[in-house]
């Protein structure tokens, strides 16, 4: 492994800033690694470095999930229906990061239109988990997570709709932050579910995540009506302990359905938090068990509409054998979309259709209200909620593809925060063997806080990270 790749992104940025490191050499080191990728983590890799831009991100190259539009660079959201599509514009957040000194290194593989928890639903084929090449990296930002874990990229952008940053971060043993809804511009992100989608960093450690995130937020984006100005800057975390911090552990998300190995590692992390000075007590999120059901109404409903623009008229794939308009639409969409995307389009169309709206969409919106109220009540007593990020460690390819709902259960612990629009971070907290397996795999710890509590979440995560001393360097070799 190149010496350069040993440096964290923050260390590399500091070295560039101090004039000790040539950013072009850094770019080329990662470019070469990305080009030689064995994990299928990338859909596109830069041929060379763009002209360096001085900035707080120090020229440290960035891998970006395929669904972010990047001008002139393939952006297909993992779908065949956007075959050959090169957007004429760049997503706001990618643009901001480039201006802050993070040049585009590569586009990363993902579940098609971010629908999935294993990155098995990609038109580019599945991504391998660097910890075990026979297992999934999680999803939908599986390419970003695998690339960062394997040291093929110093850091990466992902998106999280119901857990798509946090869950792959957990399964790959890295840090992933899902921001407060609205904190990061969605302009130029190929949408899955508009009211839930958020871009966030995937990084080797908490400091890197904070550094990248600090340049993603700021003034609201006038091109995204739902974006918000972040109150104050994101600071690099310094916290050494958790004294005075009140952590709530919701019974609803830490019991049934969680693998015993995961629970064990989670309990140990909780004990560690106590030893760092936190008070940890049970808390109630009574509607959280219904979050998944509500999510699988709302997200597919929005998706069914968001994906209507893929019609073979203006860009992307068009079925060649259609002579009439209806056949052009239906065949284009039949051939262009994968099975999971079609399933969700069907589900969402059904939930919005005449006669079913109130029973599904209307009710799901009300469940969403109750879930947000649960969190608001919990945050009166607790600073943060902690749960395992995912109910299990990385699973084998094909293990959950037969039953759609079994796959959806991966999001059980992450979806409630998405519905409430609150920030949540996943940090690696240990290793646990998979059921029936031996080689231990990473487990993620999720911390969630009230809107705009990212600084607090990062600081607490930083203290925990130091105490946990999780070592992922083996998979970066």
């Amino acid at each position: 492994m190149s010496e350069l790749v040993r440096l964290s992104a923050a260390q590399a940025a500091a070295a560039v800033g101090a004039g000790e490191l040539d950013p072009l050499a850094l770019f080329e080191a990662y470019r070469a690694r990305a080009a030689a990728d064995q994990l299928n983590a990338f859909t596109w890799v830069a041929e060379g470095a763009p002209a360096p831009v001085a900035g707080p991100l120090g020229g440290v190259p960035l891998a970006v999930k395929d669904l972010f539009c990047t001008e002139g660079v393939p952006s297909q959201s993992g779908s065949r229906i956007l075959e050959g599509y090169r957007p004429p514009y760049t997503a706001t957040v990618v643009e901001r990061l480039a201006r802050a000194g993070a040049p585009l290194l590569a586009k990363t593989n993902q579940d098609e239109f971010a629908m999935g928890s294993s990155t098995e639903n990609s038109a580019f084929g599945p991504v391998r988990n660097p910890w075990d090449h026979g297992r999934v990296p999680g999803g939908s930002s599986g390419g970003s997570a695998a690339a960062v874990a394997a040291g093929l990229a110093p850091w990466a952008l992902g998106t999280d709709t119901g857990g798509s940053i946090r869950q792959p971060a957990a399964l790959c043993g890295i840090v992933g932050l899902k921001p407060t809804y609205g904190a990061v511009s969605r302009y130029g992100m190929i949408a899955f579910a508009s009211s839930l989608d958020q871009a966030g960093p995937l990084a080797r450690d908490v400091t890197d995540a904070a550094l990248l995130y600090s340049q993603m937020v700021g003034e609201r984006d006038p091109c995204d009506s739902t974006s918000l100005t972040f109150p104050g800057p994101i600071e690099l975390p310094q916290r050494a302990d958790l004294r005075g911090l009140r952590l709530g552990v919701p019974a609803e998300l830490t019991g049934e359905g969680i693998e015993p190995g995961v629970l064990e590692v989670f309990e140990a992390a909780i004990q560690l938090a106590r030893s760092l000075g936190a008070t940890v007590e049970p808390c109630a999120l009574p509607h959280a068990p219904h979050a998944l059901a509500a999510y699988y109404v709302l997200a597919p409903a929005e998706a069914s509409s968001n994906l209507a623009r893929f019609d073979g008229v203006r860009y992307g794939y068009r079925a060649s054998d259609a002579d009439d308009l209806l056949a052009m639409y239906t065949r284009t969409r039949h051939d262009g979309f994968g099975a999971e995307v079609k399933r969700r389009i069907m589900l969402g169309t059904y939930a919005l259709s005449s006669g079913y709206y109130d029973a599904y969409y209307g009710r799901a919106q009300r469940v969403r209200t109750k879930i947000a109220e649960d969190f608001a009540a919990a945050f009166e007593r607790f600073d943060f909620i902690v749960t395992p990020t995912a109910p299990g460690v990385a699973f084998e390819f094909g293990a959950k593809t037969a039953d759609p709902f079994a796959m959806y259960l991966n999001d059980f612990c992450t979806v409630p925060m998405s519905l409430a629009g609150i920030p949540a971070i996943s940090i690696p907290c240990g290793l646990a063997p998979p059921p029936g397996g031996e080689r231990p795999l990473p487990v993620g710890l999720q911390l969630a806080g009230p809107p705009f509590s990212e600084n607090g979440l990062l600081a607490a995560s930083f203290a925990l990270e130091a105490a946990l001393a999780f070592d992922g360097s083996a998979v970066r070799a």
Partner: protein
Amino acid sequence: MIGRDEVRHVARLARLELSDEEVDRMAVELAGVLEHISTIGELDLDGVAPTSHVVAVENALRPDEPRPSLARERVLAGAPAVVDDGFAVPSPQA
């Protein structure tokens, strides 16, 4: 819970071609997912307001000021079929 005719109707609304075999599979899969989803039918949600958005923002308006449009070559560059600078489609009247 969801029959084949209903699957076909929804597929038509969504403009998705499904073979008979795909209709059968979809009916089974959707029924499975809908069974889980239907648990929200058991909750008492009387008087609960719907949330379509978690952000408390209103009036994100834009001044009525022109911004440059895209050059036509770029607009048409990725189109599957172009005739006379228009996007060509099978006629809806046909």
